């Protein structure tokens, strides 16, 4: 670790943060120079957001030191960081929709005067806007503004209170390409004016074109800290996902079956931190596991929920076994054998306060054997629950405890087991082993492979590239709402896929 110099705006050394058993940040060192644009690159779970939250005072590190302009600081709250000139633009904007731009900026300012001097503030904001190319009408209402404009407001907020260090979390995840270019320009100008910028990203192109330095994180650790042009995009991609040879599960070769699910040109608008879908097209065959790789925020949730019928399909078409199902609803689809295990276990897939028996009924209570006429048959649900607990080796003190008291792995077993009981033709699983330990992960993979062997088509949406590489027959990447690439099991390798996950398009073969 080099001794801190005057040019260093921020030095973070040996930053460590635990959340329960999970080590989010593992002795991380990061140096940010004045006037530098620094990219923080990594997949989900790498620890990027945690690190930035520590720097902005939202989290307290368990270990390690932060030095700001040569002085060692301990932040006790976000306000401490603000006073030190550090500001963060989160992925989910902290703006009040009903207020004007001006009021939002005033809200975040560090002044202590009682009276609001709006006229003066308007002039200052306009001047700042001129200086940095952020042209926003201070009297506009937030709800009237586009995502790109709202982001500019967030940046203006930081500049207004004289932030010297700006942290941005996945800033281009919801922007159009031209808005993103606009942002890069803004960041460059800010850096030239002496401010230091860190932005979190998983997009390799951004890093290559905009950043002066990049720090790559993997599983909570720094794997590389490089200057501009010290690594090619492919090398960055490899660093991001790691180059170890994955252990493939030995699975039986099967001739691919017929196409059972066909998706054509699905579109949906961006919003809420995700990119939406942009002309998504692909196919799924019977008896195969199609791995959909990609970093979160590239349209995974929209894809899964629209296929399952939970969100309406706005543009595009879907066929199930040759029949168009675009206009059908969730109930019709689940009855038709299109089943879904959502990534939000406790928010959507299960009801945490209810017990296993009632959660078993959640999706199929209308039809036999769980339901009969206007009644639900709890005895049947009870038997099913007992069977499931037995078959999947669910560790639970009983079947009448609230599901919230089970571990993540056991909750996931219930989610999957429940959908599998319906003998699906197509199963969509999203992030099935997130937060699960090795044994539970293996159990889930076993189930999925069995299902595949019996002829079901599975769409496996996962941010965990290892998982995808281990059990998929075919692999595609979801990036900014479109499907890129198509690898067979044999040809799949990390580096190439990692690069595509970062948005780097392969040269035509």
């Amino acid at each position, binding site marked *: 670790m080099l001794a801190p110099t005057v040019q260093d705006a921020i030095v973070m050394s040996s930053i460590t943060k635990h959340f329960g058993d999970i080590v989010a940040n593992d002795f991380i060192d990061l140096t940010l120079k004045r006037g530098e644009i620094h990219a923080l690159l990594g997949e989900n779970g790498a620890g990027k957001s945690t690190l930035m939250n520590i720097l902005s005072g939202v989290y307290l590190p368990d270990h390690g030191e932060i030095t700001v302009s040569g002085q060692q600081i301990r932040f006790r709250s*976000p306000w401490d960081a603000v006073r030190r000139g550090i500001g963060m633009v989160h992925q989910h904007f*902290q703006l*009040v929709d*009903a207020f004007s731009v001006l009021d939002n900026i005033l809200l975040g300012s560090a002044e202590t005067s*009682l*009276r609001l001097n709006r006229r003066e503030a308007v002039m200052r904001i306009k001047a700042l806007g001129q200086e940095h190319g952020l042209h926003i009408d201070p009297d506009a209402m937030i*709800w009237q503004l586009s995502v790109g404009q709202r982001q500019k407001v967030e940046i203006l907020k930081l500049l207004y209170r004289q932030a010297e260090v700006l942290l941005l979390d996945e800033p281009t995840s919801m922007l159009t390409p031209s808005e993103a270019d606009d942002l890069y320009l803004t960041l460059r100008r800010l850096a030239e004016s002496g401010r230091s910028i860190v932005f979190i990203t998983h997009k390799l192109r951004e890093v290559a074109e905009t950043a002066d330095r990049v720090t790559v994180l993997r599983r909570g650790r720094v794997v590389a800290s490089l200057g501009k042009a010290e690594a090619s995009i492919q090398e960055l991609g490899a660093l991001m996902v790691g180059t170890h040879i994955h252990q493939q599960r030995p699975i039986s070769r099967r001739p691919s079956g017929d196409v059972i699910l066909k998706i054509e040109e699905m579109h949906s608008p961006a919003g809420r931190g995700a990119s939406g879908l942009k002309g998504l097209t692909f196919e799924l065959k019977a008896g195969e596991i199609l791995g959909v790789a990609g970093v979160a925020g590239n349209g995974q949730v929209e894809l899964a929920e629209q296929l399952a019928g939970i969100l309406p399909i706005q543009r595009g078409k879907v066929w199930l076994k040759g029949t168009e199902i675009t206009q059908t609803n969730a109930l019709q689809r689940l009855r038709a054998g299109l089943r879904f295990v959502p990534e939000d276990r406790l928010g959507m897939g299960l009801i945490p306060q209810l017990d296993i028996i009632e959660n078993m009924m959640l999706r199929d209570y209308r039809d036999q054997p769980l339901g009969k006429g206007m009644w639900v048959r709890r005895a049947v649900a009870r038997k099913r629950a007992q069977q499931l607990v037995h078959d999947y080796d669910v560790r639970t003190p009983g079947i009448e405890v609230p599901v919230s008291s089970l571990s993540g792995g056991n909750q996931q077993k219930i989610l999957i087991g429940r959908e599998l009981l319906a003998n699906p033709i197509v199963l969509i699983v999203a992030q099935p082993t997130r937060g699960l330990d090795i044994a539970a992960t293996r159990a889930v993979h076993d189930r999925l492979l069995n299902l595949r062997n019996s002829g079901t088509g599975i769409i496996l949406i996962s941010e965990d590239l290892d998982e995808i590489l281990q059990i998929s027959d075919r692999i595609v990447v979801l990036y900014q709402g479109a499907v890129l690439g198509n690898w067979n099991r044999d040809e799949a390798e990390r580096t190439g896929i990692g690069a595509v996950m970062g948005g780097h398009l392969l040269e035509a073969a």
Partner: protein
Amino acid sequence: MNAAFLVSMLATCVAAATPLLLAALGELVAERSGVLNLGVEGIMLVGALTAVAVTLATGTVAVGVAGAVLSGMALGLLFAFLTVTIRADHVVAGLTMVLFGDGLSSFAGHGLVGIDVRDSIHALPLPLLSNIPALGPIFFRQNILVYFSYIMVAGVWYFLYRTRPGLALRAAGEKPSAIDVAGWNVFKIRYLAVIFGAGMAGLAGAFLSVAYLHSWAEGMTAGRGWVALALVIFAGWHPVKLLGGAYLFGFAYILIAESQVIGGVFFLISTYVMQMFPYVMAIAVLAVMGRESVKRRSGAPAALALPYVREER
């Protein structure tokens, strides 16, 4: 009906509207910070009683009014503790507060029913202003609490829209997480807003008992607390519109009283239909706002009645 009669009737409207205005102003501030206090009716009753009791005990009405405000603030503190710190359900807490206030005031006021409050607040005509034709007698020959209500409308407006803490308070009711990161204490803001609101409700009750009806009677607020709640909605949570709405409702109250004097079956039906006016109007406003509130242009504060939980550090 001649001009003089009209003028004197309108002057009475202003007085009748004042308790509504005071209570609603207070509730507006509380709701803007995100807390729904349904207990206004109960707090007004306690304020009304306290004003009478303390005035009779000390002989000075000013002390009585001060006591009423303090009693309101005490109840406000209790309510804030329940809803902001314990994060209990706002609705249940509010309804209970009505029950509590009603019971407490009835119980404590047992021996004071009907006693005429001698040292009550008299009219205080303002020197120059009261001579303006028409407007003068209506607005400027009132008592000091009425003048106070004018000042409060301006004060609340100025506070909410022209000061920094007022901005933070409004944000606390819309998106508390936004100001938490900016260093404001959401809990403190809500506590203060609720205590203010309850203090105003206490004051409104005091007005009713020592400046308007000049005595105490069980349940004397007769639903005015609920009308105040309707008023806040009707005014779209904006203090200036509240002023207009209060006088409109005050006018309705007086009209009802007058028509009862005139009598007849026709007037009796109309009386009750007229009394429905505040409530129906409030629903109409909500319905219209409902369409627009998707964009949250002028709807209820977005975080109303939602307890704020701060994330772990």
